[in-house]
């Protein structure tokens, strides 16, 4: 950690006494530890409940080690009519959106990276602008009406299309980075040796872009898995709802929340995204792309 060092002897002008320096270093070290403890508690304390309550036979709102340790809260989730089906719904939404985004964004990214289409730079600019400006909250009225008019209200197809439309631009930018980093000479040599366009794409571009596709896939899944607003406004039928909305219903609908259900389900629902994030982060590092409908 960076603490003030003694000023070198060659600077005699404001040389403080030895003891004053020791006190200063001590104080700044104490201040540093105090800050770390407070910030650590700030970030840890709200999360502790999610670690302990799922394993407590009688959880309360207070975060405390389980008074009566149990794993029974998890099998009990089977008894709830919405908990586990909602996880299936989340998987369906996440996978369908992921397939759609990858299938649409990958060819678009390749074309934008390799072919100098007239107006390309303007197109990229407009895409970036719209993808960051048009958020789910700002566009909830027209999105609701559009999906309503298309007859897709209360269907998972509607949710998938809206989520994909919002995620594709950022997907294109991330993938374009990957294609841009691929030397053009690979494709040129393949062409010299008489490979067809299809062969070049399948045997050279696709393998090279595979890490990029994996990043996009996981990134879309994480986003859709966590998204609350879009399914919240577009789905009504309780049997269709993804876990994000069902968790919310657990603590807003009908009287006292069942904390055993809520805590164990909340943990089960949260683990996959944390695991996926850590996986992507470890392998590819942090990338700051935003513009996600939230």
């Amino acid at each position, binding site marked *: 950690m960076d603490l003030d060092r003694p000023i070198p002897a060659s600077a005699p002008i404001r040389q403080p006494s030895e003891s004053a320096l020791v006190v200063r270093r001590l104080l700044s070290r104490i201040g540093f530890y105090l800050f770390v403890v407070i910030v*650590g508690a*700030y970030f840890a304390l709200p999360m502790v409940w999610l670690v302990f309550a799922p394993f407590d036979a009688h959880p309360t709102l207070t975060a405390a080690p389980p008074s009566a340790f149990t794993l029974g809260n998890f099998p009990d989730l089977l008894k709830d009519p919405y908990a586990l089906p909602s996880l299936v719904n989340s998987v369906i939404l996440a996978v369908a959106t992921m397939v759609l985004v990858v299938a649409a964004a990958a060819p678009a990214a*390749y074309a934008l990276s390799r*072919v100098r289409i007239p107006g390309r730079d303007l197109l990229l600019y407009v895409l970036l602008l719209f993808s960051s400006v048009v958020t789910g909250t700002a566009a909830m009225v027209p999105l609701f009406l559009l999906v309503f008019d298309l007859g897709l209200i209360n269907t998972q197809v509607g949710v998938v299309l809206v989520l994909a439309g919002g995620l594709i631009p950022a997907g294109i930018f991330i993938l374009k980075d990957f294609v841009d980093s691929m030397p053009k000479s690979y494709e040129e040599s393949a062409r010299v040796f008489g490979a067809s366009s299809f062969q070049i794409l399948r045997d050279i571009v696709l393998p090279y872009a595979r890490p990029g596709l994996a990043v996009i896939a996981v990134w879309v899944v994480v986003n859709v898995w966590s998204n609350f607003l879009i399914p919240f*406004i577009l789905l009504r039928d309780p049997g269709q709802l993804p*876990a994000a909305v069902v968790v919310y219903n657990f603590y807003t609908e009908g009287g006292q929340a069942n904390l055993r259900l809520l805590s164990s389900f909340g943990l089960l629902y949260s683990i996959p995204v944390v695991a996926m994030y850590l996986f992507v982060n470890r392998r590819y590092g942090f990338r700051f792309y935003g513009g996600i409908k939230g």
Partner: protein
Amino acid sequence: MSPRGAELPAPPRGASTPAEASAAALSTRGAVAFLTPALLLIGVFLIFPALWTLYLGITDYRLTGIQAAQPQVIGLDNYTAALGDPAFANSLWVTVLYVLGSAVIGQLGLGFALAWMFRRWQGPARNALEVLVIVAWIVPSSVVAFLWIAFLDTHNGTLNAALGNANIPWLFSWPLLSIIVFNTWRGTAFSMLLCGGALNTLPPSHLETARLAGASSWQQLRDIVLPSIRGHLLTNLLLISLWTFNDFTPYLITAGGPNFATDTLPVYIFRNALVNFQLGYGAAISAILLVINLGIALIYLRVLRARN
């Protein structure tokens, strides 16, 4: 311009457009075919809704009744109604405080402080703190919303327990402060990671020289570090401001209450448009939010271009 600048390669040997195209596996026509599905989806589900918002905002559209079948264009009535509505003024003010408190001061301030601390601090305590901050950012919002409801609960909340059974009704007495503290907790990771990346771009020799010359940590920060990463800080600030303006998560904790104290613009739009089904009015407010977003995004892109 390209999204992050810098990656547009200069055409080799002044190659003409067809020559460049032939190097790739695609003709221009093929490229258009490759772009079509993506542009179709973006056009219908991203660009069209934005433009439609602007139109709806000037109509008296409702989901049921006569106005549903034949919405009338009523000009700027929705906008004048909104601008004259104290509820809207309250909502805008609450949103500004929420953005200033949680994004500008909270996330950027704390995120930078953490990145600065982490710069040359190694060890398990550092890693644990970093993971905690990131996990707060990753866990889905409907889960963290309840974690904070529980944490701030008047009688059984962990915060009051930690303060010696203080029984302070945080969400009733300090609602806006509560969601500001919540959103700082929620979003600091992004600024921490981005500032960390920015600090890594500084040549260590600069700071070393300054230190040898007797500059204190504070002087190094003010005279060397902040001026060099100003661009990063500004882009970060614009992004988190835009996201916080559009953040729907406060709804999950307080639903805008008590007594509209946390009625941010997204919550206000949701209530008017999709609960009370005043779609025209809701769309007008949405259009105002879109314009705010557009303003932030245009500044962002300009800063980004200036930086490259």
